[in-house]
């Protein structure tokens, strides 16, 4: 099975305190990494190829800095990386990104395209849009995949943790939910191994696309007014523990 996995470089919300200053994210000290969901998608693709044969290509739309996420996923075990980069892609909305990715899909011969269910700074939209542009069937929030001849049996995780099981024809696009697998660890040695691999870069001309102007635009980031909020306790660790014990007692939190 030939599998394309879409990955995105995002500010790592687990590593950073995302702070807003003057309408923008405070950017000087942001740590970036691969969007959490995309690691699960790459791991799943690698496992499918281990079972069924084929190869895994990782692709991203981004600037030169985005190369590092392609290399990280190649260190995980993806066979090829593909960088889609052009000043014309900057500021693209979800539809613009999906349009660019669709052009890359059409240049290949993929049976399956995986995306993350959502990006940390995104909106859970690119996968579904990509499928619609390609006119391929789609399933979101996928938490199990089993190949069955020319089709897949997939599970979608829905409300309450229930699973909706469907059959889906190939080729198709699936968006992957966290927890579907345990993404393998990538060590420094793995990264070093792929550090000098040439990564093809395709621009708007090579892809033959021009994303339409964004119809959904972010005006600014802001901090919502504090609202009612919590009563904040202060003091030393021992004092805080003491206050919490009293509160828990009063509210029936100690049995």
């Amino acid at each position, binding site marked *: 099975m030939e599998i394309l996995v879409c990955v995105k470089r995002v500010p790592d919300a687990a590593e950073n305190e995302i702070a807003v200053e003057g309408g923008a994210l405070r950017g000087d000290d942001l740590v970036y990494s691969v969007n959490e969901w995309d690691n699960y998608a790459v791991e799943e693709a690698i496992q499918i190829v281990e079972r069924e044969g084929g190869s895994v290509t990782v692709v991203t739309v981004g600037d030169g800095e985005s190369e590092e996420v392609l290399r990280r996923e190649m260190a995980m075990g993806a066979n090829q990386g593909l960088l889609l980069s052009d000043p014309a892609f900057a500021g693209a909305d979800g539809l613009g990104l999906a349009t660019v990715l669709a052009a890359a899909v059409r240049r290949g011969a993929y049976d399956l395209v995986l995306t993350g269910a959502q990006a940390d700074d995104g909106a859970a939209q690119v996968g579904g849009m990509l499928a619609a542009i390609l006119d391929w069937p*789609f399933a979101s929030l996928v938490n199990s995949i089993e190949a069955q001849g020319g089709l897949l049996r997939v599970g979608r995780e829905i409300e309450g943790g229930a699973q909706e099981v469907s059959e889906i024809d190939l080729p198709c696009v699936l968006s992957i939910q966290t927890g579907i697998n345990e993404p393998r660890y990538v060590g420094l040695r793995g990264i070093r191994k792929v550090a000098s691999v040439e990564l093809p870069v395709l621009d708007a001309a090579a892809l033959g696309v021009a994303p339409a102007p964004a119809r959904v635009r972010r005006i600014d980031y802001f901090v919502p007014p504090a609202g009612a909020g919590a009563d904040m306790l202060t003091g030393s660790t021992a004092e805080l523990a003491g206050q919490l014990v009293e509160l828990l007692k009063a509210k029936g939190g100690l049995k």
Partner: protein
Amino acid sequence: MDNVFAYLAHAGGKLDDSALELLGAARTLFPGAAPVALAAGSGASLDAACQEAAASFAEVWKFDQEVLAYPNAELLRPLLARVLPPGAIVLLPHSTLGMDLGPGLSVKLGAAYLPDVVDGSAAAGMTLEAVRQEFSGQASAHVTCDLSAGAVVTLRSGAFKADASRSAAGRIVDRSPDAAGLAARRRFVKLVQAEAGDIDITREEVLVSVGRGIGDKENIALVEELAGAMGAALCCSRPIVDAKWLEKPRQVGTSGQTVKPRVYLALGISGSFQHLGGIKGSPFLVAVNKNPKAPIFQAASVGVVADLLELVPALTEAIRKGR
């Protein structure tokens, strides 16, 4: 705006809570509109849902086909693309169905896609200004959406008040023939209910809940001890289950369990809407987080900015001493 539509989720003959929230959102975002409800399904349960909807919506389009008995987005998308007029504005819940249906629907309609709206004001001309969140609620953003070619808008659960204030005596229009001949390349097979665990956190009165801030699997023992000292049950956020540090039946949130405790102690949890969506009944919520700007402090009754790896052992100790 005379072309606003709301997709009604329903099950077992009852409208989902989202249905009247969409109406509330429509009245906020498109005050002049008379939103048309769209209801797909099959048989008596669809009829009952349409009856219920007609009490609040002036017009309900009913699509009755056996294949629609289960709401498969791969069938609903071509159906809606077939029946909606050009420039339609379609409101969907930002649920797992909305996420499945919405992005592709916007492409098929040639419309803009504005997902997971948490707030907004009345559209001015062809522009809608709304509020979204990123990074699990750690950053809010104002966004504008160009409505000139229509839009698919999904709304976060609970963000807009359900509006049942006006009785409509609405008209139910049977448009089932328009839904004939739908076929999908993704076919629904079955639903598998979530596994039950050795503990039912939905019945517990006092919960200690641990999130990614715990850092390491080894540290789970610290919160287990605290829960033990309190006589509380231990639950968690999703990343803890994804990492297989605790079992799925202990996960609180929209894709986990819905709990209704008296006291909820959230340790190292940022406060995403998917997590908070699983906590009902306004418990006494204590949040411990090292980030003073964590969104959980908006929802908490009492907050402590601290490293949980220091505070939790101290708290366990203090409780044991007090006994």
